[in-house]
């Protein structure tokens, strides 16, 4: 029978004797884990920021469309009034503990023109109140104001479009598009304000007009999409599942942001994979450092380990003493690492990690503007993965020294050097 309490007691004493060596070994794991936690939470925070920014300018975390609309973007593939009601009902039933934002849009491709010229445009009819909370485009207008309840023939356009078409707040412009009947029709609107996202393609093309104007001009009753912004992207799957179950057979397609914002989704995945590669390299180095420290301590204590064999410990038990030392170090380092990691995360919670000084302004990536201030976000799964990775590394770095200790020849080990 293996005498675990005695071996644990002995391992603890051994760690205490070589306090400096133990502390340095533990420090490698502690700092490694703390940095991993900080790095993961910052990456998760940045990714959540990207997703949030990206989906707000696009179709939200979850969108409801008529089948085929996401490919055709045609008014022919729109939600009728009944489907719109059903979609809004399903959105309201979403299993969420925090409030979400739902907006209804009628969107079409068309042309925006002024006396100075014309530009291809994505014209979106919106409910000003919900859209303001949804896309936040109008939260800080570059000029003028955002659309308001009661606005009729008004438009909120990008600063890029305003420049290209020579428009200012109060200027008039004409929107032209194919309406539901198939005819081409124009709509005169007046610019009430402009926005600037930093995404040139968007700033030169996206036009918001009141939903009521879009409906009457384009001849539609329903909508092209109902979109939801959720409190966190992690809610996407459960909300999707619930909505799909609710709307089964209703002829409504419910899609999550990974499907509607593929470029963004790929960008997040690629960045995530890059982070893991970096972390694995970091931890490979940490593993070698720990392995070296533990193995050197075994070589240094060869006579002691031989003595333990002569006193009646089996090879396996002798190896176990070394392994338990690694386990104790890993536990201590794990706890300290989590504490230090959270302390670092806490330090960045308020003001974030500001990379403004080392990052050029207006970097766009995957359809969003990169925010140079990174805020941490704690995701339990990633936290557990980080702790598990450190545990595996701490234990596996102790395995070889333990195996070596177990296989020491006791007669050779106790020889006087």
């Amino acid at each position: 029978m293996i005498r675990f309490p005695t071996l644990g007691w002995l391992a603890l004493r051994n760690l205490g004797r070589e306090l400096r060596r133990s502390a340095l070994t533990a420090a490698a794991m502690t700092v490694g884990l703390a940095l991993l936690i900080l790095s993961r939470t910052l990456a998760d925070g940045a990714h959540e920021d990207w997703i949030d920014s990206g989906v707000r300018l696009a179709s939200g975390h979850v969108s409801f469309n008529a089948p085929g609309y996401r490919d055709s973007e045609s008014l022919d593939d729109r939600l009728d009034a009944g489907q719109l009601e059903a979609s809004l009902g399903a959105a309201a039933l979403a299993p969420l503990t925090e409030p979400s934002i739902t907006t209804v849009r009628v969107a079409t491709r068309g042309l925006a023109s002024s006396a100075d010229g014309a530009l291809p445009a994505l014209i979106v009819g919106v409910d000003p109140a919900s859209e303001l909370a949804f896309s936040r485009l109008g939260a800080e207008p570059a000029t003028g104001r955002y659309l308001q309840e009661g606005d009729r023939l008004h438009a909120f356009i990008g600063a890029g479009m305003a420049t290209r078409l020579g428009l200012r707040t109060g200027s008039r412009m004409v929107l032209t598009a194919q309406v539901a009947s198939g005819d081409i029709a124009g709509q005169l609107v007046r610019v009430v304000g402009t926005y600037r996202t930093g995404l040139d393609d968007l700033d030169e093309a996206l036009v918001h007009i009141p939903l009521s104007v879009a409906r009457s001009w384009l001849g539609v009753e329903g909508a092209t999409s109902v979109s939801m912004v959720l409190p966190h992207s992690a809610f996407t799957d459960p909300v999707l599942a619930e909505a799909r179950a609710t709307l089964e057979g209703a002829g409504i397609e419910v899609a999550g942001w990974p499907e509607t914002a593929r470029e963004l989704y790929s960008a997040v995945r690629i960045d995530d994979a890059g982070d893991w590669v970096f972390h694995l390299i970091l931890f490979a180095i940490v593993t070698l450092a720990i392995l070296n420290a533990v193995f050197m301590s075994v070589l240094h204590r060869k006579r002691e380990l031989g003595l333990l064999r002569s006193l009646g410990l089996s090879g396996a038990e002798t190896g176990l003493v070394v392994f338990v030392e690694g386990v104790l170090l890993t536990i201590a380092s794990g706890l300290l690492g989590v504490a230090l990691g959270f302390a670092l995360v806490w330090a960045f919670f308020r003001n974030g990690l500001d990379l403004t000084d080392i990052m050029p302004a207006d970097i766009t990536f995957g359809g969003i503007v990169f925010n140079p201030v990174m805020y941490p976000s704690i995701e339990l799964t990633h936290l557990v993965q980080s702790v598990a990775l450190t545990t595996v590394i701490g234990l596996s770095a102790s395995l070889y020294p333990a195996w070596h200790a177990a296989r020491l020849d006791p007669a050779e080990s106790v020889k006087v050097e």
Partner: protein
Amino acid sequence: MNEHAVRTEDLWKIYPQEPRPVEAVRGVDLVVAPGEFVVMAGPSGSGKTTVLNLLGGLTRPSRGKVWIEGREISALPDKALAQVRLSRIGFVFQSYNLLPVLTALENAEFTLLLQGVPVTERRRRVRRLFREIGLEGLEDRRPPRLSGGEQQRVAVARAVLGEPALVLADEPTANLDSATADALLDVMEQLNRDNGTTFVFSTHDPRVMERASRLVRLVDGRVAEETVSGDAG
């Protein structure tokens, strides 16, 4: 009681080495009765330490057999051999006998701890023996704060406290001055006399040889001569 504390039969230890294997022990036949105080003497390289290691199960014979209290140990698996060492054999080495992370008392009681003896009983036995062998008051000292002689006495205490069939002592006086060596040997003789503990030494220290009840001389891995105390006259 077993007739023999230890017995060997045609014991060989051959180390594979280029260009020729080294025959460290060559056909040693040895019988040690319970309570004997046996000394193996011989020049360096004569195989004394290797024989002790074979008797203690620290290394396995290339050929031949070893019995401890009638139980053949040469072919036992590692775990069973460790159990034999724990319950039936005590070791005293030339130096570095103690675990540096433990106090004198903890070192002495370590075998009892592994044997599962309750703490109160362990402490009682250790303190009594410490009194007998002059270690009283040193219980809480760690090895670096003990003299060489004190360290060896702690090692002897640890070796005998588990009430083994035999104690194997490999050059236990090699690093000690005369007075300390004599004091250590007095302790061992006393334990041999009072408790009937069997001792087998390897040494080339004449002071140890003088106290042997039987002197076994090894030359080139073979028993060259055996002298029972009183025969040498």
